[in-house]
């Protein structure tokens, strides 16, 4: 008879140990993940303690690369067509300094301003800024007057000119309303990064950083601290949530 058999409690103890370990392995990561990757419940309001922002390093932005645009179109159910009446939430812009000839590429999207002119001019309040800094259009109160498109200094908004089909249920859009980049708010609320950032990283460029500008430890805050960045049309004093390096 083995020693274990001699002690009738030994088997039960082993069983309890194994059970506790299994339970720990099952629940533990969940508990840990809850702390690290906390996603917002639908009924919970956006937090004013955060300000979502983006940093774009134009020196890493690939010439001819359109991955961010394609990913945005796929995620948000845009057609990808580029006619004058088609929606484009993000676009690659090529600029050349007229004095020096210096050229660069950058993605242009809604700059998620702290003081957004589109929100100021919207008569019904459909253009609005969430507490965490994301500028959105409320599809239920947009009357399609397009004053926000007149007012946006970044030409970041599109008007839906024709009926839509095959929409992404998470990203409701509608004919007759104005729309623009939402920072992929549906993903951000699940604690994921916007589709464009993910695609840029996947393509190996790593030109786009996304994160909480109010968190000094976030990757974006750290990156902003060590290299000079600029706002586009900084003269307007809008305090954009999207900043650029290398321009």
């Amino acid at each position, binding site marked *: 008879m083995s020693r274990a058999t001699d002690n009738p409690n030994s088997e039960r103890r082993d069983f309890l140990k194994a059970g506790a370990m299994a339970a720990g392995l099952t629940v533990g990561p969940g508990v840990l993940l809850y702390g690290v990757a906390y996603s917002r419940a639908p009924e919970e309001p956006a937090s004013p303690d955060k300000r979502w922002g983006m940093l774009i390093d134009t020196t890493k932005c690939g010439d001819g690369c359109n991955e961010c645009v394609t990913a945005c179109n796929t995620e948000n159910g845009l057609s990808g067509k*580029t006619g*004058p*009446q*088609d*929606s*484009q939430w993000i*676009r*690659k*812009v*090529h*600029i*050349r*300094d*007229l*004095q020096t000839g210096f050229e660069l590429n950058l993605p*242009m999207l809604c700059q998620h301003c702290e003081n957004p*002119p589109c*929100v*100021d*001019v*919207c*008569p*019904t*309040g*459909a253009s609005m800024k969430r507490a965490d800094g994301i500028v959105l259009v409320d599809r*239920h*109160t*947009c*009357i*399609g*007057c*397009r*004053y926000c*498109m*007149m*007012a*946006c*200094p*970044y*030409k970041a*908004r*599109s*008007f*839906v*000119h*024709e*009926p839509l089909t095959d929409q992404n249920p998470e990203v409701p859009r509608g*004919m*007759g*309303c*104005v729309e623009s980049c939402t920072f992929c708010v549906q993903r951000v609320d699940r604690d994921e990064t916007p589709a464009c950032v993910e695609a840029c990283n996947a393509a190996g460029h790593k030109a786009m950083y996304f994160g909480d500008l109010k968190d000094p430890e976030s990757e974006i805050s750290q990156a902003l601290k060590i290299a000079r960045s600029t706002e*586009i*049309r900084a003269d*307007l004093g809008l305090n954009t949530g999207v900043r650029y390096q290398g321009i």
Partner: protein
Amino acid sequence: MSQQLCINQGECRTSLFLILLALGGVVVLGTLYAFFTLEHHGHVLTGMSNQIVWGLPHVFAVFLIVAASGALNVASIGSVFGKEVYKRRAPLSGMLALTLLAGGLAVLVLDLGRPDRLIVAMTHYNFKSIFAWNMIFYNGFFAIVGLYLITLMDRKLKSWSKPAGFAAFIWRLILTTATGSIFGFIVARSGYDAALYAPMFIIFSFAYGLAIFMLVQASMYSWNRLSLDAGIERRMKNLLAVFVGASLYFTVVLHLTNLYFAKQWDFERWILLEGGLYPALFWVGQIILGGILPLILLLAPRSGNHRGTGLNILAALLVILGGLAQMYVTIIGVQAFPMPIFPGHEVSSTFYDGVVADYAPGVYEWLLGLGGPAITFVLTVIGVRVFKFLPQDDFHAMETHPQRH
């Protein structure tokens, strides 16, 4: 029935009235057709795009809204400044102000992406938006001018016409300030972002509104086979000349200011010289046909007893045409010029950055846009038929108190 409705005319001329009504009605039907088509298929059928977001309908709409407040000016000169000649014209002036505003607002609403949500616009207000304030100012204008008209037309309430007229005068100044500010408050685009837009639109409104008033008045006198008093006609054409001159002055100041700012040079060079259709509309439409030529026609000395009624009417017509050209340049021209997102850089993208936007209004925009003047026309034709809007001058009273005219 039609005989009873016709209280304003010496003879009713019902058939002519019905023809006018039918003409206006046909255009309004076309407008409704365009509206329902766009409601169903979207703005994809128009020439408007993500570059030119406000098109031809807005040209007509803003012109009519601006002219509406200006048309009220005749009444204000009468009620606020006590000029008898203008007091006699106050009811017609007030009615025109209402019909012009109704026409302009109808176009704005029919062009909305979601016109079915008009109730949202009436119940959700963002008070930082000048558009939201305008909804209050426009609705308030209907109420105040409506009450003012009642005080003018009901003898028992006559004593209230001065305070009501004063309130309407202040309200119309605020309203046009707010209409000009729609453009003045836009920081994004080179051609806007100037406080001058508010007073400039007030001056424009004086000219456009008076020109329309003079045309309607001339038509009504002709309809009734009456002749406008030469002194009154002279006074009104001189006033129009002052307003046209002031409009030119403000236009010159706006562009001179821009020409002084280096950052605006590219835009000014384009809108004044190199922009194709837009400089043509500016110089030929707004400045020459809508400004200088009317000034010459209005101020040219009349020989002997020649009143120059035809010249005055032509001048008023030209001021209206010039006004539409001005709105086209102000609204569409400024949008067509590339937005200065990266000043000092050559810019290109799939979203038409850095290029002049194309715009060719389609048939639906024309139908929507022309609906504004058509609605104004129909309402005015009905108004002058069923109410006593024909100015009735009391020359005896004028001779008794000549200093008040």
